[in-house]
């Protein structure tokens, strides 16, 4: 009886030892991976920050205005360029009524 119990205990100890070693190894590996991921995230965050700042610099209103005027030849919006939809509908109906007459 003692022999069986001893054997069982021995195997349990062996299993626990191997498992513990494997878990430790696995955790160490994961910790290294985690550190790498953290570093990568930090680096990516820093790069994103730089890119966002650069984008903001490129989207400066004075630069956009210059491009709009020089390259796209856009001009300022005048009050007469903006139409209220209701006014447009009434103007269209007045125009079509006039044509019918």
């Amino acid at each position, binding site marked *: 009886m003692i022999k069986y*119990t001893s054997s069982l205990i021995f195997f349990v100890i062996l299993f626990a030892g191997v498992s513990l070693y494997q878990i430790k190894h696995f955790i160490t590996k994961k910790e290294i991976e985690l550190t790498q991921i953290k570093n990568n995230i*930090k680096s990516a965050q820093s790069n994103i920050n730089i890119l966002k700042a650069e984008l903001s610099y490129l989207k400066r209103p004075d630069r956009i205005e210059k491009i709009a005027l020089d390259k796209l030849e856009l001009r300022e919006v005048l*009050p007469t360029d903006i139409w209220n939809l209701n006014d447009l509908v009434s103007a269209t109906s007045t125009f079509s009524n006039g044509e019918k007459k």
Partner: protein
Amino acid sequence: MKIFDFFNLDVRKQNQSKFRKIKLLICSVMLIMSFTIIGYRTISLASINKNNVSNKVYAEIENESIPKSLRGNIYDRNNKILATTINTLSLNVNPQEILNIDQTIAKLIKIFPQLEEKVLYKKLNSNKKFINLLKEISPREYVSLLNAGIEGLKIETKNKRIYPNNTLAAHILGATDIDGNGIAGIEKKFDSQLQDGSNVTLSIHSGIQHITRTLLLDQIKKFKAEGGAGIIMNAKNGEVFSIVSLPDYNANNYNSILNYKLFNKATKGIYELGSTLKLITAAIAFDSNLINENDVFDVSKPLKVSSRIINDFHPLNYAINIPEVIVHSSNIGSAKIAEKFGSSTQLKYLKSLGLLSILSLEIPELGKPQVLIDKKVLSTMTISYGHGISITPMHLASATATIVNSGAKVNPTLIKGKTEKKNEVIISNKTSLKMKSIMRLVVSNKYGTAKKAEAPGYLIGGKTGTAEKIKPSGGYSKKENIVAFTGAFPMNDPEFIITIMIDNPKGQKFSFGHRTAGWVVAPIVKKLVTRVAPILGVNPQLESSSKFSNNLLNYKIRGKNHGANL
């Protein structure tokens, strides 16, 4: 008997064997229990749900593992970056670790052509152990350095605060010192929040800020003025869309800027803003019920009070009512109105409009108003047309907003979406309607002083002000003016406040030598509203439209046929 047993060897052996068995059993039970626990823990760890672990790890990464070491960003109302922090690399060297100086110099110059060979040679032959070669290098240059494999080089990472829009809202954003602590503007006011890595979103609109600055700068140049300030603000909730102070500076070079450029004329500088204060006088007159709406005031002769004579810039030879006092900008009329309601009433309203105290705007650079509160009749009269009361342009914008916002107090704010408790009512809705009607007439009527501010469709209303500048030695300068405009649009339901001030414009040929607000400031208002209204979503209201309704009162304004009172 026991003593005999002790000497009995068989009995002793039997007892020992019994004790051993008991000890062994206890040890076995304890070992089995320990290993059962260890075994259970091992198996449970090995077979744990991976997703739970992943979630736990991710939560850890987000919350604790990666500290938000960078200072938070400042955004405009459309989430455009106004201030951010980036990591920069600096290039240092330890000359003692360099084996071949000539080769190192050749490699360095290839990557950094801006470095001078002689200077490098001197630095690399030095006995020092640490020398800075370049304060900033780009990521690309860094990669080239790594590829070149130069010994003795040290790359240091530093945080740098940058303002990508350079001059845009420089006075509002402020600056940080070399250690990254806020020392001015929003950077100072929200320092602890930004230090924690939290972001701040302002109510400022980059595009509108740029337009305000450009137009103000153009006019300052045209009239050879010393500077100016421009504000556009939401008339209902006080959110500031643009706030310009000129001259300004590149926010990236804060430490090398002259003091006078750092001064915020819009929120810190206090000025006598002249006749713009007549709006407040008229509002007090209507709201206090101490003056009848149909009362008229004789403005045909200069008014002599104590040793002072009060004149009108555009004299009229008959008695005029309150709307005419405002439209013609009569100092005499305004003084007589103030005399009627008295000093206590005037001070009560000035206080409730916030014109006697520092504003609660979210920057540290705020000016304290200076007002003559001696309660003398002369002081009451001069304050009524803007003399003896020095306030910031922001104070004027805030008071204008309160007047047109049905009398509910508007506290300006630089923070987007800041909720405020229900605003205190300063003047009645009825008074507000009268004031809006009169303000519209100042721009639309042929005798109005702000005729040049009229932008078709946008129903601009407001009041101009031209005041002689106070000399540093005391007294008023006859040669130097402060010109201002404060108003709102569209006047039938004011959505935005516009306040402009220009410091010391000079008369020009094209203005026939005039340097009054009607000539200098009013034209900017027209251009500014025309450009920003479509961005702000304010549609032009054409008077020819069948749906057009201005909801305003119609006052009849008399005047001389000598043209506009600019």
